[in-house]
């Protein structure tokens, strides 16, 4: 048994945490924070109406009811806050799902979670006539949890239990099945379709703080659980056999991380609709700075997710002025080339 103590520890720099790696983490943090600051500033300045610096300050601190510009800025504050929340939640849940499934293409869309939320919300709209975020959130959470359980149950069938590959296949199949159920409801109910389609494209446009409030506890709990699961995800990344050999409890670790991912993505979906690409792309960008360890990967994914979504929302506002292009479309427009660049730059990092 290796019995190292403080006295015989090697002097000098650490083998495990060399300075170079720390520098890369710091660069990533600087890039992320600077990007977030820039994106937030742009988000307050740009819109269908361009405003001056004084008006931005006035609009954020104490909007003058007689100034259209300051009023416009004031509506951009909750919108920006929402984009930060949703982007952070999606980036984080994507990183967690990629960790659970050891699949670099996993995201809330792949594992059936978004489709589950969508189906539950559609049923809520059509049967119970729900129409506010405070109601959507419960349906979205229930649908996401139901889909996740279904995917996990189907993926666990057979000898080796819930392997990453089987989870991904079960998730894709479940997504497809649930999406066609959503279509089935919408086809016969145009009234539902009209409510649903705005929600479904994915947008942060109509944000106000009152709508966001009911989602916050879900996102907060999801954040805490995700950060708690980082050690478990690190050990799962070595494969189930090694993980168990190291004393990891594979099932509970997956369940804890899965719960975190469901809370985060369903929270984001409830408030902004299913927004694609953020959960898929952001963890790969974060890994450039953090490497595969989840202790840093998870917070960096949240940070970069927020940057991406705020930036995508700004671009969506100016690209077709004075109309808004919903952010769910912009993430695909911004995310797809970025993802192709990532794949070309190096093979997609496996986990």
């Amino acid at each position: 048994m290796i019995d190292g103590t403080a006295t015989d520890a090697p002097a000098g720099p650490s083998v495990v945490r060399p300075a170079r790696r720390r520098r890369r983490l710091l660069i990533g943090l600087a890039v992320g924070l600077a990007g977030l600051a820039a994106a937030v500033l742009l988000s307050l300045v740009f819109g269908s109406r361009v405003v001056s610096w004084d008006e931005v300050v006035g609009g954020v601190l104490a909007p003058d009811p007689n100034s259209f510009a300051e009023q416009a800025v004031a509506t951009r504050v909750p919108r920006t806050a929402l984009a930060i929340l949703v982007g952070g939640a999606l980036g984080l849940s994507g990183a967690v799902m990629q960790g659970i499934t050891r699949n670099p293409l996993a995201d809330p869309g792949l594992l059936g979670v978004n489709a589950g939320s969508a189906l539950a919300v559609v049923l809520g709209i059509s049967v119970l006539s729900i129409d506010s975020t405070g109601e959507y959130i419960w349906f979205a959470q229930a649908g996401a949890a139901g889909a996740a359980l279904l995917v996990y149950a189907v993926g666990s069938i057979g000898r080796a239990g819930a392997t990453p590959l089987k989870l991904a296949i079960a998730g894709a199949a479940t997504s497809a099945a649930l999406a066609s159920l959503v279509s089935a409801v919408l086809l016969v109910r145009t009234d539902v379709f009209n409510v649903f389609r705005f929600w479904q494209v994915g947008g942060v446009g109509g944000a106000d703080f009152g709508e966001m409030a009911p989602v916050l506890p879900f996102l907060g709990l999801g954040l805490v659980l995700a950060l708690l699961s980082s050690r478990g995800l690190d050990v799962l990344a070595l494969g189930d056999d090694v993980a168990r050999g190291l004393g990891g409890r594979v099932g509970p670790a997956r369940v804890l991380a899965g719960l975190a991912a469901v809370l985060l993505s369903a929270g984001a979906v409830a408030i902004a609709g299913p927004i694609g690409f953020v959960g898929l792309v952001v963890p790969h960008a974060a890994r450039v700075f953090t490497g595969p360890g989840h202790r840093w990967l998870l917070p960096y994914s949240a940070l970069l997710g927020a940057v991406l979504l705020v930036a995508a929302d700004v671009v969506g506002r100016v690209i077709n002025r004075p109309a808004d292009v919903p952010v769910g479309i912009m993430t695909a427009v911004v995310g797809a080339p970025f993802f192709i660049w990532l794949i070309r730059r190096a093979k997609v990092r496996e986990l």
Partner: protein
Amino acid sequence: MTVHRSLVTEALTVGYDDRVVVQELTLAIPAGRISVIVGANACGKSTLLRAMARLLPPRSGAVLLDGRSIAERPTREVAKILGLLPQTPVAPDDIAVADLVARGRYPHRSFLRPWTQEDEAAVAEALRMTDVLDLADRSVDELSGGQRQRVWIAMALAQGTDVLLLDEPTTFLDVAHQIEVLDLLTDLNRQKGTTIVMVLHDLNLAARYADELFAVKDGRLYLSGAPADVVTAPMVRDVFGMDARIVADDVSGTPLVLPIGRHHSRV
């Protein structure tokens, strides 16, 4: 230093679905020695090893570590005593060698207990012993097969266990690297007293490196003992279904199996 642990299977029966793979198998692993499990393909030797590492629950019987059923002990506690290297472990892509080895410290850490000097020392020593210290900063993806296997062994060493189970640690390696890995494990056994249990395919290497050899046939223990006593022509015929001549290995003094195929039989 290493504590000698007793690792025993008692009438161990293991299976998948409705197929029984290991049947009422009883054996005792000698502490502080190198034990090698041999047998034909699909005889249950890997399943036996996986059950001994608590990866598979026994259908009946038990695996006892220090006299207590391994299934009933907290898995984290077991992980401080008994380490496992599966046949083809997967490394996260682009992980640095030192980071992978550091993950071997998992059972010694917790959410509230950060990285300590002791963890650092264990990782550094594991890297040194396996001669991969110079590679510490490299990505595991860039390494050759032999280097990669040494890194995985380093990870198992960093775990700091008294018993180490390895499932075919020489698979996919050329002969020079097979010897290198087996020499490294022997060093570990001699220098630290670590009890080593491994499944090997190559009967001649098994005879060279084993202190105790376990021959498994159809999920049952056929014969066990010192290689000179176990490796005999009748054993090879019964266990592997092959005729062979056994001669003395000039290099090591252990038995050497010369297989007799249909085209070469100048007996």
